[in-house]
């Protein structure tokens, strides 16, 4: 059965996330970040940041609410029992800092079949309150046995 690519190009409502200092601290501790700029406002400002910066991979925290509904969309129709998160890319721009409001737009970038597997590629683009792009994410999910 070929994959249904009808959802290719579909977009989802923008998702807004307010970045907090304590959430950055919690995330930074969980992934083992040790750079004091992620914990101490004075050190962050001394290093040239507007406020405490999030570690780059904090992108998953403010993007999740945007990408989740796309991944779960019945119109995309992934078979979750056979799905794996196959690949991930982030391209970073302006740093994300405590106090920022990040808005993320998500779309279905591509759906195709290769070697009996379905490839479902989602793209998220996140911008801060000044309209600066902070990250572009490409999320690749692979469904076996399509």
């Amino acid at each position: 059965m070929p994959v249904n690519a009808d959802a290719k190009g579909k977009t989802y409502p923008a998702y807004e996330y307010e970045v907090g200092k304590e959430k950055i601290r919690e995330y930074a501790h969980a992934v083992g970040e040790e750079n004091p700029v992620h914990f101490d406002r004075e050190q962050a400002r001394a290093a040239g940041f507007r406020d405490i910066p999030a570690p780059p991979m904090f992108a998953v925290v403010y993007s999740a609410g945007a990408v989740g509904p796309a991944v779960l969309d019945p119109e995309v129709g992934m078979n979750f029992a056979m799905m794996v998160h196959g690949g991930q890319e982030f391209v970073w721009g302006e740093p994300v800092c405590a106090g920022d409001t990040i808005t993320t737009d998500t779309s279905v970038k591509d759906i195709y079949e290769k070697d009996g597997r379905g490839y479902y590629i989602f793209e998220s683009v996140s911008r801060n309150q000044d309209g600066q792009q902070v990250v572009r994410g490409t999320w690749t999910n692979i469904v076996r046995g399509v």
Partner: protein
Amino acid sequence: MSVKVDLKVTPDKYLPHRYAGASGDFNPIHIDPDFARQVGLPSNILHGLYSMAQVARACTHAAGGDPRSLRRLSVQFRGMGVPEQEIRVTGKERESRDGAVVVELVAEQGDNQIIRNAEAELAIE
């Protein structure tokens, strides 16, 4: 000077729980060993994006610690990572251009590659 990446970290037994709380991903395959075994996994497994965060951290560390140095990171997730086993992230420079270096990386637990074909672009002062 050529950039070399080498980072070792051992996630403890409860790391997946802390990462679940920090990231919001409470999929039971990551935090419930009984559930994980019921669906055919050896135990609860690490979040792939946690492992990717270790690759990211290894990169910024190698570039001198500034989180702004990491411009791009792409990874492929393969074998499953598990808690309580050392993760080793290694990488070497492939090319250098326009004040940035491109580094190729893998993350392994013993012989098990949990991230492969990773590529990072790092700004180097």
